[in-house]
């Protein structure tokens, strides 16, 4: 029997043997497999491993044998140092949302449209974001040096006839000093988000409002800001999640000190995990932080689940 030539091309005899469907399935499996293995092994499995260890009193030597149920969680939640670290994270979040984000919105609306040299400003403002956190921390430690002969900021304070401030060693100041560095480092990133958001707003809308007699402020408040709400949503989320997991800057500059004054959740976990080797206790802290991130992400998605004006998403 002769095979039908038309049918032959359809089946594509060069790669015969496997049906199209089987090949599709093979592509799916082959493409997903390597990433899934790495992801499951290093991201998902550790969560379960950690949940397991978090119920043990385990110092990391030998196997974990002393199961103490939820005792670690109880101890963490009543530990005043942990409470302090949560309060500090909340303070950082609030300061970011109240100071950093509005400033980023205002500056980006200034640069956004037609200001000559705006590309240059964007490049400059974004530069700290790409510097490593270690280097940023050390740069600021030089500036914060308590000795006015050495530290730039105290030098200026003295030149202005003011008293010096022991930025990183004063319990009342240190968190604020850390926040300044965070702002310096991440301000440009948020500005970049707003610049992109602004570029997506058609200028016609604002033109129309201006025609109708809206002044610049009204235009900004009633037109630009609502249209930017999608970007604001993202920026707030990034800011909060970033603050919850803040570690390197704090660890390099203060190690959470003095006397836990700048302790954040991640430094607390690192201290118990890698300095005191209380692996069970540290695991419980990690799980608590993970839950905080999950709960925040899900709640935030629920709360802000209003379609964006521009994209409808």
């Amino acid at each position, binding site marked *: 029997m002769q095979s039908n030539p038309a049918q032959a*091309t359809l089946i*594509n005899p060069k790669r015969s043997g496997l049906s*199209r469907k089987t*090949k*599709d*399935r093979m*592509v*799916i499996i*082959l493409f*997903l497999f390597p*990433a899934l293995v*790495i*992801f499951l092994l*290093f*991201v998902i499995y*550790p*969560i379960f*491993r*950690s949940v397991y260890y978090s119920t043990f009193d385990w110092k990391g030597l030998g196997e974990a044998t002393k199961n103490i149920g939820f005792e670690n969680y109880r101890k963490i939640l009543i530990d005043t140092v942990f409470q302090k670290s949560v309060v500090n994270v909340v303070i950082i979040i609030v300061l970011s949302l109240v100071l950093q984000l509005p400033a980023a919105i205002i*500056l980006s609306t*200034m640069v956004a449209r037609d*200001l000559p040299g705006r590309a240059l*400003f964007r*490049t*400059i*403002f974004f*530069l700290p974001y*790409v*510097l*490593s*956190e*270690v*280097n940023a921390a*050390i*740069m600021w430690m030089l*500036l914060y040096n308590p000795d006015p*002969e*050495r530290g*730039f900021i105290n*030098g200026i304070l003295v030149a202005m006839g003011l008293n010096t401030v022991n930025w990183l060693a004063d319990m009342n100041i240190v968190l604020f000093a850390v926040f300044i560095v965070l702002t*310096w480092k991440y301000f440009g990133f948020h500005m*970049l*988000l707003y610049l992109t958001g602004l570029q997506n707003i058609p200028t016609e809308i604002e033109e129309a409002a201006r025609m109708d007699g809206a002044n610049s402020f009204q235009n900004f408040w009633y037109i630009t800001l609502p249209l930017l709400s*999608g*970007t604001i949503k993202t*920026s707030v989320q*990034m800011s909060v*999640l970033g603050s919850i*997991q803040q*570690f*390197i800057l704090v660890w*390099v500059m203060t190690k959470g000190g003095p006397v836990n004054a700048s302790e954040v959740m*991640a430094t607390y976990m690192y201290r118990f*995990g*890698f300095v005191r080797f209380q692996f069970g206790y540290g*695991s419980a802290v*990690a799980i608590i932080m*993970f839950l905080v*991130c999950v709960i925040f*992400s899900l709640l935030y998605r629920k709360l802000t689940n209003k379609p964006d004006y521009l994209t409808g998403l």
Partner: protein
Amino acid sequence: MQRIIPTPRWMRKAVPRVFQYILLGITTILIFIPIVILLFGSVKTTGQMYSHPYSIPNPPDWTNIVNILSTPSFWGMMKNSLIVMVSTTALTVFLCALVSFVFARLEFRGKNWIFNLFTVGLMFPINVAILPVYFVLRQLEQYGINMIDSLMGVILVQTAFQLSGNIMILRGFFTAVPKELQDAAYIDGCTNFDFFWRILLPLVKPSLAAIAALIMIASWNDLLVPLVVLNSDKLWTLPLGTMQFQGQYSQDLAIISAFVALSSIPTIIFYFFAEKQIVAGLTAGAVKG
């Protein structure tokens, strides 16, 4: 039509402009102060650093820079950082491209389930996960797989935690490629693999460059994973070395400045070359994430 004499156009524009430039100028100065003081400090002697801590170095003294550049350990760290960065970037881009293609272009049962699994990674950042991950590395070590104190461990952990975010970004880019292209390719007898390899990948090269730039920066700057995984100083990466160096010479501000400046310069140079890609990747990531 009747008109009140208007403010001249140039003035209406120029006055707010001046105000804008002043504000932006102040911000620019605030951003540059730490960087400039660091760069000044890096070309001062220790003596100059004490007598004129924040003035322009006059004359510049290159001793510290030269000394650091002539220590083999600095170049060792540079080499380790490069190995980690290149491997992590190559591996992550490769894996993310495969996965994103499947998510963006193919249909199969359980797709949503697997996709949601990857989104868990967004809520479990490495700073939170580091201790749990360390347990797994130790466990692998017990099975004879060398993960602790090896660059391989750093590379795999960095890759694993880069997957989620970059898959989301790339999936967005891949979905934007018109569906018609895929249909046309299939009619011409392309298999899924052909379409992915010969048509899609060449088309999305700019997107791959964008996520590659982001991964390179994240990997190059990463301190936490090397800090936990690496013990022997021969394997230290640049940020880890910088932190140790700062601890060791904490009194000699001049030499610390030189070291930090030298370890920042690769990032700054890279930034000026790849700004477009970095910005494209970040904004796409933020919108999709």
